[in-house]
């Protein structure tokens, strides 16, 4: 049998961003797959070595477009570890609020993308539209819609504006009502039942060894979440659940886990949890300072050493390893993007044997973010 080569990407509706998956197909079955990143490489890690500790905050949100705030939070936490700074309680709550808002935005984006890859474009129009309400909130809070440059080492950039929490409450009420619409159009849809279960399976016994994290790992049946495992910001004070297979709430368990369907459901359930977390934050928001008194931004004396900080992003573990030699700029920064594992090695393995029509669905269901892969 003759094999054909097929290129999905870098400009393709079925790919999550600028990224190329090179396929070898026999009929319509994938025999071999190779991931080719590199279209979004901008050398962030190198650029960070040539900018001051303070200037880097404006650079790093650009590493992950759908959810930029995790970069700021992880970098800030790593620098605080080196500086031995304990940030005020209010700053911790504001950070948590920003991260959870970002998670809802990213999950809406991911849900819409996955539905779009199944041909259900109405869902993507709705989710992108609803995500805009979150972006409006970000605009009011930070002055920017996408790249907020808001979480700084030592705290946050400025305090929350008057009436913001009331507006947030309204948006949360709206989003909660909208979830019912998504359930009806997506999770009661025959296309979803027929096409998503059992597709793109990550075996449970391999998931941890392959380095899969985040919702993709939880869909395999592990209750692992960095917000609980390695708590940061205000998460230890908050009460929330970790949706994981086979505990899918009101949703049916249609497969043995680790597949596109379970990942889709986990993301939908996480939106609900984030709404719940944000409501608790509105109630508990402490008063006080929103930042430490920061030294002169041009002359930070960061002590020598290594620091690693990690946060749970909507895609998995997002970590920053920061190395300082005591200079004005970081000596080395390494970004551990969550897509690094499931975006290259995992898809090259699980795409084997898949149908061509399911390839883009598998890529979207893993929520691969190419910019955090190549940085």
């Amino acid at each position, binding site marked *: 049998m003759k094999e054909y080569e097929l290129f999905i990407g870098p400009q393709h509706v079925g790919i999550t961003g600028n990224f190329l998956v090179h396929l070898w197909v026999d009929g319509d079955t994938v025999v071999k797959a190779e991931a080719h990143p590199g279209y979004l490489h901008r050398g962030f890690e190198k650029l960070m070595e040539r900018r001051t500790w303070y200037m880097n905050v404006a650079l790093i949100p650009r590493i992950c477009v759908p959810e930029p705030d995790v970069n700021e939070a992880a970098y800030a*936490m790593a620098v605080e*570890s080196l*500086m031995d700074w304990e940030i005020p309680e209010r700053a911790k709550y504001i950070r948590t609020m920003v991260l959870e808002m970002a998670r809802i935005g990213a999950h809406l984006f991911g849900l819409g993308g996955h539905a779009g890859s199944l041909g259900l474009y109405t869902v993507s129009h709705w989710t992108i539209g609803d995500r805009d309400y979150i972006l409006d909130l970000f605009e009011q809070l930070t002055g920017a819609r996408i790249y907020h440059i808001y979480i700084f080492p030592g705290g946050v950039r400025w305090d929350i504006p008057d009436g913001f929490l009331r507006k947030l409450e309204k948006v949360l009420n709206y989003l909660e009502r909208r979830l019912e619409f998504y359930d009806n159009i997506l999770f009661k849809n025959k296309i979803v039942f027929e096409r998503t279960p059992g597709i793109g399976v990550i075996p449970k016994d391999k998931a941890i*060894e*392959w*380095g899969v994290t985040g919702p993709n790992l939880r869909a395999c049946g592990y209750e692992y979440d960095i917000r609980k495992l390695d*708590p*940061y910001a205000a998460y230890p004070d908050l009460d929330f659940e970790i949706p994981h297979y086979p505990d899918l709430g009101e949703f049916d368990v249609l497969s043995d886990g680790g597949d596109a369907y379970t990942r889709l459901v986990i993301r939908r359930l996480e939106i609900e949890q984030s709404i719940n977390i944000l409501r608790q934050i509105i109630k508990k928001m402490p008063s006080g300072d929103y930042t430490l008194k920061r030294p002169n931004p041009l002359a930070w004396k960061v002590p020598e050493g*290594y620091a690693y900080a990690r946060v749970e992003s909507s895609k998995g573990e997002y970590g920053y390893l920061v190395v300082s030699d005591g200079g004005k700029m970081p000596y080395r920064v390494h970004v551990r993007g969550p897509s690094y594992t499931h975006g290259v090695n995992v898809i090259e393995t699980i795409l084997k044997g898949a149908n061509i029509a399911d390839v883009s669905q598998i890529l979207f269901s893993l929520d691969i973010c190419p910019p955090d892969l190549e940085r």
Partner: protein
Amino acid sequence: MNTQVLLENLGIRCERLKVKGNTVPRYMCHVDSESIESIIEKLKSAGFKHFVALTCVDWIKDGEFELLYHLFSYESREDVFLSVRIPRDAPIMKTLRHLFPQIETYEREIHEMFGVEFEGNDRLGEFILEDWDDMPPMRKDFDTEEYAKRKYYSVPLVDEGDGK
């Protein structure tokens, strides 16, 4: 078993890193390139089943590359960094991709960005960069400004015409 005791039994000296924000303890351990494989195997069987990342740091003053193998245990909730120093003028290291498959991807990147040779990894080659014929760009002695001037200043500006 307590991880610190485990590491001491293996004869590894380690120090604790400062952690603010996150809460889990992180250990930085110094090992040599011969024993790294067996140490990772032992840690893996002791619960360190999550390989977080492989990082390279260019210590140009010491003439060394530092490879940081970062492992995490979901059970005991601890981080271990295994630091291996290799000479900068002959950067050769055994591949460890048989231990965790994603090490292959990290090795491909480090080979491209720092020029470290991983023996036994047959997928080293073009990964993120395209048609790169210069020094590996993440090395400290690679001058980005000089490169940009040499590479792009010679390119003539596009003639956009007079708009007619």
